[in-house]
């Protein structure tokens, strides 16, 4: 067993283990962290098949950006773990049976007797100095230009759809209007002095600071 093969089995085992932990963990934050582990070990597997650029992008984009965002969302959501768990256990037997049938089927078809080195020859390693990134760039912008452009449209649609589904003005939300704020000029627009008669202070209130209503700024806030 060569060193490469050894590495493959190590990382593959970690990936499968992490994937299993993702679906069985009680705490969603743990599940997300295991998902990160699964991504990192998949990135290592990609490095082994000489897809260095993709491996690094997987770590940078998925682990670095997407999963961190995911972690934030999971931490902010108040997920009812017990309810999820009850569902999980209720459907577990059926799920296990289907998974078992599918795994048996898949092993029979894509097992070593149909997929070994004799049916698919080992690819020739790339020569030294071969740049994965250069080739990918050339392919992407020359051979697969059309597909690349469609992918751009897909991203545009994702933006439009996300904005349509989430952006809404509620009547009672408080928000700032920067465009109006910067237009305010010095003088009466910025501050409004309200003349008020001084009120008699009740004896029970200590005379430290100003009482409510006496301060012109307070009056302004209530007036707005």
């Amino acid at each position: 067993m060569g060193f490469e093969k050894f590495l493959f089995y190590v990382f593959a085992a970690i990936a499968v283990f992490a994937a299993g932990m993702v679906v069985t963990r009680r705490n969603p934050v743990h599940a997300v962290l295991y998902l990160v582990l699964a991504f990192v070990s998949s990135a290592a597997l990609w490095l082994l098949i000489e897809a260095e650029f993709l491996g690094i992008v997987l770590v940078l984009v998925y682990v670095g950006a997407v999963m961190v965002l995911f972690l934030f969302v999971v931490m902010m959501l108040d997920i009812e773990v017990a309810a999820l768990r009850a569902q999980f256990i209720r459907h577990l037997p059926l799920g296990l049976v289907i998974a078992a049938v599918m795994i048996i089927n898949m092993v029979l078809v894509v097992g070593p007797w149909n997929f070994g080195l004799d049916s698919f020859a080992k690819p020739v390693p790339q020569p030294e100095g071969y740049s994965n990134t250069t080739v990918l760039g050339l392919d992407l912008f020359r051979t697969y230009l059309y597909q690349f452009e469609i992918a751009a449209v897909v991203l545009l649609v994702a933006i439009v759809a996300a904005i349509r589904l989430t952006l809404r003005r509620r009547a009672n939300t408080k928000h700032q209007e920067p465009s109006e704020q910067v237009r305010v000029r010095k003088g009466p627009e910025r501050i409004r002095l309200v003349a008020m008669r001084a009120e008699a202070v009740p004896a029970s209130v200590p005379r430290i600071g100003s009482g409510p209503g006496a301060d012109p700024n307070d009056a302004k806030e209530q007036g707005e």
Partner: protein
Amino acid sequence: MPFEAAYLYTILPELVILITASVVLVVDLYLRDDQKGLNHSLTLVGLVLALASVGLVGGDQTATAFGGAFVRDPMSDLLKGVVIVLTLFTFVYSSNYMRDRDMWVGEYHVLVLFSLLGVMIMISANDFLSMYLGLELLALCLYALVAFDRDSKAGSEAAMKYFVLGSIGTGMLLYGISMLYGATGGIGFGDVAAAVAATGTDDKVLVFGLVFVLIGIAFKFGAVPFHMWMPDVYQGAPAPVVLFLSSAPKVAAFAMAARILLDALPGLLADWGDILIILSVLSMAVGNVVAIAQTNIKRMLAYSTVSHVGFIFFGLLAGTEQGYAAAMFYAVVYGLMAVGAFGVLVMISHKGFEAENLDDLKGLGDRDPWLAAMMTLVMFSMAGVPPMVGFMAKLLVLEAVVNVGLIWLAIVAVVFSIIGAFYYLRVVKMIYFDKPEVMDPVTASGSARIAVSVNGLAILFLGMFPAGLLALCEAAF
């Protein structure tokens, strides 16, 4: 294969749609609420221009672009023309409905136009990558459109179901594509077909990939047992969205099946033919029988779609040019009928009232005789009553199946069609023989009335003179 400027001419219809969508997206920002009608006009102009450019670019010869990623042939010309017309109908029918419900915004036009772009990319795809990307573009727009009414709980739920099940379907498709790539070493449909012809068809990996690709196709079509999303999505989504969802994307699903099965995997006909037999018989049985039990007309039409998908598969599995042409004819005709049926539903809904239940159609003959006549034409056509075009479509498919010796299959199809005729005719009975529950006159716009008349009379006209459309379908194979 560097870029050539001539490619841009070949993809002109797609470019027109893309530019229209982008223009609407930007122009919408500068419109006040009372000017939103301009979106509608811009969209219609763009669609008409796209239709003209399909005719301009089209022809008998086949042209490819972008190193074989894109193909333009008689099949793509016809199907693109049809989906653009179906989208035109969609916009004309939906204007009043969406305006009444505060959904007449630029995003609606943009998302429908981008889904149309996805459909057209799928129709012209010549490799697995562009097929997949077109499918994703279409699916992403449809998820958002189903949830377009943000305040509707049913809509959000439907969109979530559609999203999860659609993602599973796409995942299956991708897995199958990766297997096919592993077995053949190519993603172009021509490359895959050549590799299959060279290595033979007893490769297990190849068949394994084929099965997953077929599952993906069946998901998009909504064939049994992958139809679970359809009734819920049809019920939950706004009616104009369902109108679009049930027409152009089904034509796209046909194009996807035809491109993948006939262009890339013709060598595996024996394998996918058998799988399609199971899918189509199950679809006809479940679709037609379950539709009888529905009281919600949107759900009923969803199950009716499932049964029509069975017929489209019939034509494909016959494995002859006659069968393929019949399947294409059926897909086109189905799009026309679905648009008509949902168009009438959209038109009889008005502010604060949603026509969803079969009972809402009661007495339509008294309330609006012309609209009732059009709905009757559509229902007769779906049931397969001559001289409507639905009869012609069913006849052609059955003829193709009988010609390859699958007589038992034809008998099964006829039996289930007769069962299915019950619920279509029940709608006609409710329209003419039941007392109306609401007496308000139908407040549909004039343009929608013209559109529904064109739609209904086209169904009648094509049924009596099917030769022209049929010749176009036959020229494609």
